[in-house]
């Protein structure tokens, strides 16, 4: 077997084997730390495999390798294949996932050090399962395997959000996340069955009937809206922050939520032939970006700020892909994965230090957590699109693409969002790290090495990945040349303006009228409105219908059965009275009948 394929199989199989091992050997799982170290070792091995693959592909980006076997036979033929598909796109994603996953697993060791051993073992079993599922998705040779991974990451997300299952809020959030994304996944199921009905396979390269691509793209995009938290299906993502912070970093910021974007990149042949759906994507992405950024401005929970920021950035990616820039969308996925993971892990270090998510419990933390402050500030600047940092380059690509696609509305929304992003991140940075220290912040303790090393590793791509846009574009099979035009300049200005404004308001205490003016806008846009609508439709419509059906079943359908039974019993009772036991009665009947027969005979 080709050693490259073997490496991919290691990245896929090792986490699977470890997850299985931890699941079926409770003794090992309940040891806690050893189980954790085993899982971390697995992720590091997967990382080295992915690193080797990426290095090979940087050398020869055009290479394509496949190893597949029949998974679903139908009519004696293979309807679906499973295996690994290696090309520039899958290999680069594999590396991103492996890096972030390894960092997160290492970070968790410190972050969850207070957990009891069995819980820690369970956590790492989930983590290994997630890595396997995500790699299954990334390496998919066709849409079917992608769907398998897609649903499995959804399930691990459910398990990890509900990791602290004794907390009612975690249970609620886990359930909500699964149900909302499952609802959207119906679109993917429709896409799959349509694809197989038309082409007999699940390949995204299959020739489609005229106009078919639009339908398929629409079905696929419904699923993307759920997984990648696009308006109005974004409602699960902020709640998902109930999970441990490293989980939020890995699943709900860097990798799993980006799976929707990855799906669009993979199914590019389908989306390329669906201009209407792409226009919809551009607009919806831009709306989501602005909407989520507005909400992020008023959040008081540091994780919620980052969660809405993730929604907003996913909006950028979707918008860019809609505008036809695979390079922009996919590159932003990559840079975002690193700087958002960095932000979340830094936030995790803060939460670990002050034992609270609330920004009001923080403040002035830079004195106690110097390195964490540096990491968070650099992550924020990268997110805000400061020139030179990685976020700037990918965001610029998207804005250019949207501009070129001739969609001034979406462009305007996205540029406004760029300013808002800089503003709300400045607000967060100032509130958490500067200003007057809160009581909790004075007793904060710095993170240990297992938490600082991942931050250090993630700092590198968060700063410098933008400079590698050229080589990355070759992996994606696209061209890239950096040039700064008016759009870029204006965006930079907006970003700097947002930072300055944020500093003026929250750092220096000036212009206090402005946040008060923002408040109503944000309140209107606040997540709870959309949430309430969904909740209402579930509790009133869904449960109402269910109760009505259950009532109908018990009293009408079953009532008829019971009535039938009762009818037989009742008529039995009545007929029984004919049998009196008196010989006279029977003789009356006999002679009466005989007389009637005789009468009838005579009449004939």
């Amino acid at each position, binding site marked *: 077997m080709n050693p490259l394929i073997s490496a991919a199989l290691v990245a896929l199989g090792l986490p699977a084997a470890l997850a299985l091992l931890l699941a079926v050997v*409770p003794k090992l799982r309940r040891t806690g730390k050893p189980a954790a170290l085993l899982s971390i070792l697995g992720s590091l091995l997967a990382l080295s495999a992915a690193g080797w693959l990426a290095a090979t592909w940087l050398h020869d980006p055009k290479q394509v390798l496949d190893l597949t076997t*029949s*998974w*679903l*036979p*139908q*009519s*004696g*033929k293979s*309807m679906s294949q499973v295996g690994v598909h290696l090309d520039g796109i899958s290999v680069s994603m594999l590396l991103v996932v492996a890096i972030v996953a390894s960092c997160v697993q290492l970070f968790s060791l410190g972050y969850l050090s207070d957990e009891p051993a069995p819980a820690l073992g369970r956590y790492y079993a989930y983590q290994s399962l997630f890595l396997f599922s995500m790699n299954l998705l990334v390496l998919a040779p066709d849409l079917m395997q992608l769907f*398998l991974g897609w*649903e*499995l990451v959804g*399930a691990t997300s*459910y*398990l990890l959000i*509900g990791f602290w*299952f*004794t907390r*009612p809020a*975690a*249970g*609620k959030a886990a*359930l909500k996340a*699964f*149900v909302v994304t*499952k609802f959207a996944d*119906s679109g993917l*199921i*429709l896409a*799959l*069955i*349509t694809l*197989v*009905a*038309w*082409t*007999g396979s699940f390949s995204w390269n*299959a020739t*489609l*009937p*005229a*106009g*078919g691509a639009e339908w398929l793209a629409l079905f696929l995009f419904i699923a993307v809206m759920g997984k990648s938290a696009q308006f109005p299906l974004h409602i699960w993502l902020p709640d998902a922050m109930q999970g441990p912070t490293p989980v939020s970093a890995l699943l709900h910021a860097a990798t799993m939520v980006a799976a929707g974007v990855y799906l669009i990149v993979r199914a590019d042949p389908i989306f390329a032939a669906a201009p209407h759906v792409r226009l919809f994507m551009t607009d919806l992405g831009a709306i989501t970006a602005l909407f989520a950024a507005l909400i992020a401005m008023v959040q008081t929970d540091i994780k919620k700020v980052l969660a809405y920021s993730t929604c907003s950035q996913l909006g950028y990616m979707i918008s860019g892909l809609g505008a036809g820039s695979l390079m922009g969308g996919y590159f932003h996925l990559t840079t975002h994965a690193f700087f958002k993971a960095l932000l979340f892990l830094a936030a995790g270090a803060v939460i670990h230090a002050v034992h609270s998510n609330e920004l009001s419990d923080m403040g002035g933390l830079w004195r106690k957590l110097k390195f964490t402050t540096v990491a968070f500030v650099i992550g924020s600047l990268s997110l805000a699109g400061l020139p030179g940092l990685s976020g700037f380059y990918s965001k610029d690509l998207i804005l250019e693409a949207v501009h070129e696609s001739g969609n001034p509305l979406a462009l305007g929304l996205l540029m406004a969002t760029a300013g808002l992003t800089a503003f709300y991140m400045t607000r967060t940075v100032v509130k958490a790290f500067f200003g007057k220290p809160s009581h909790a912040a004075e007793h904060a303790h710095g993170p240990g090495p297992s938490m600082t090393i991942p931050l250090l590793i993630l700092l590198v791509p968060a700063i410098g990945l933008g400079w590698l846009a050229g080589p990355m574009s070759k992996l994606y099979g696209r061209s890239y040349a950096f040039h700064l035009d008016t759009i870029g300049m204006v965006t930079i200005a907006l970003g700097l303006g947002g930072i300055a404004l944020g500093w003026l308001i929250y750092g220096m205490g000036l212009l206090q009228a402005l946040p008060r003016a923002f408040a109503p806008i944000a309140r209107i846009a606040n997540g709870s409105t959309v949430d309430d609508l969904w909740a209402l439709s579930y509790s009133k419509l*869904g*449960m109402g219908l*269910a109760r009505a*059906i*259950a*009532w109908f*079943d*018990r*009293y009408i*359908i*079953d*009532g*008829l*059965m*019971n009535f039938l*039974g009762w009818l037989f019993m009742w008529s039995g009772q009545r007929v029984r009275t004919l049998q009196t036991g008196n010989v006279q009665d029977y003789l009356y009947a006999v002679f009466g009948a005989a007389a009637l027969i005789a009468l009838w005979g005579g009449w004939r």
Partner: protein
Amino acid sequence: MSHLLSIIIAAPFVAALLLLPCRSTDRLLMRWISLLGSLVSLTGSLIVAWRYDIKAGGLQMAELYPLVPSLGIDIRLAVDGWGVSLLLLTGIIITTGVLASWTLKDREKEFFALLLILVAGVFGVFVCQDLFVFFLFYEIAVLPMYLLIAIWGSSNKVADAGPFRFIWKLFDIGGREYAAMKLTLMLLVGSAFILVAVIALYQAAGAHTFDMGVLGAFKYDASLQKWIFPLVWLGFGTLAGVFPFHTWSPDGHASAPTAVSMLHAGVLMKLGAFGVIRIGMMMLPEGAHAWVWAVGLIAAINVLYGALSAMAQKDLKYIIAYSSVSHMGVVMLGAATLTQGGWNGAVYQMFAHGIMTGLFFALVGLVYERAHTREVGKMGGFAQAMPIVAAFFTLGCLSSLGLPGTAGFVAEFLVFAGAWSGPHLWWALPAVAGAFITAIYVLRVTRDVFWGPGPSEQFHDLLDARKTELGALWILGTCIVLFGLWPRLLLDYIDPATTQNLAMATQTAQLTPTPATAVAAQAPPPVAPPAATAAVAHAAAGGGR
């Protein structure tokens, strides 16, 4: 002539006979006899799967014992790929069922004897190729249920609020005697329909044999087929939980003791679906063709109706029981598509749902035994006291909602795809919606029962699974994952058998002759997915062999 199949059928029966001389104090001995009887059948089923020649396909390992030669009744046994899968399912469920009732403490001798006799009937149905004996086995499988529920069952204590409460009192709804009587009567009415159909088929063929091969090859008059098919459909369909004749199922499964719920929901309901396909669709192709619109429509109703009803239930066992009604709808829907994918999916769903619901009922019985209540609203935080039960319950839920990597996904997906490429596209939509609704209620139940802060004072004797129960859970859980990750383990058996059986079901059907497309040909068809063409193509291919 190998005797493998007769051994599989006879083993539980012999075990039941061996139980008779046992003293009622020989508790362990009786359990071991039952377990060994089940294990012999399970091992036999595994050997059948091993020996079955997939490449050759068709009916294999045939056995023939004359029974009533003057009427042409013989015990004819043989298996095809479907039979192999369903034998395995039955073997797994009875073995785990015995393990799950290891701690039963009331008249074990009678309980296990009835259970084993019942399962012998089930094995018989799946491999029998003689219509009369088929019916005989079917009745053997159905009748012991009355005693099993009425004697060892439990009564529902979750009262229904509202102005109609008096109806519950009036009929003793939820009571075990009520449930047992209702189940038996409804299934017996179904049997009466089937008996009429059996005799009609025998008479009309005029071949003086009940050999299903001969009867199946006979071309019945189209008008005869059109009125016999509904008899078969409703007769067997009652056991498959077909709306509106499903109401025995929630009450019956809720009241039945653990192993009986496992067997009944896990295997017996499949007899119904199997009967509709085997007798109805394969022997009466034109009748089936005239009626599939109704079969599919009702099945679509089943899926949604069962799922929504489950959503509103407050009793743990009722939730699972209604979910069976919903999932059996998927089986019937797949059957009604008359496509390769739909039938593959239907048979796969029989297997997957059997395992999954077996697991569910084992777990629910376990929880009930420890919590002494079935009311979901009172429970909460059980995961801390019984983590293993919680883990397996979660696995069952994930399979129930059709998560990839579990057996439930393969089955449901095949049915969706089959419906979408069949003549009635829209059938796929309620099926997909049903999977989504299932996600809501099963995950909500998991949360309500197992998650949340620790269990209240009321639940002081919550205990995690014992050794034998653990064995049952592991077997079922492993099957769910194994057949979910590697569907070819079963599909390699099912798919060729489907091709052949489907050929019987479509041989005389007057399908519109459109050019074969989709899976059969490489050229993509115009926008709309092709109608029944795929089925025709397979039929032609299968018939040629």
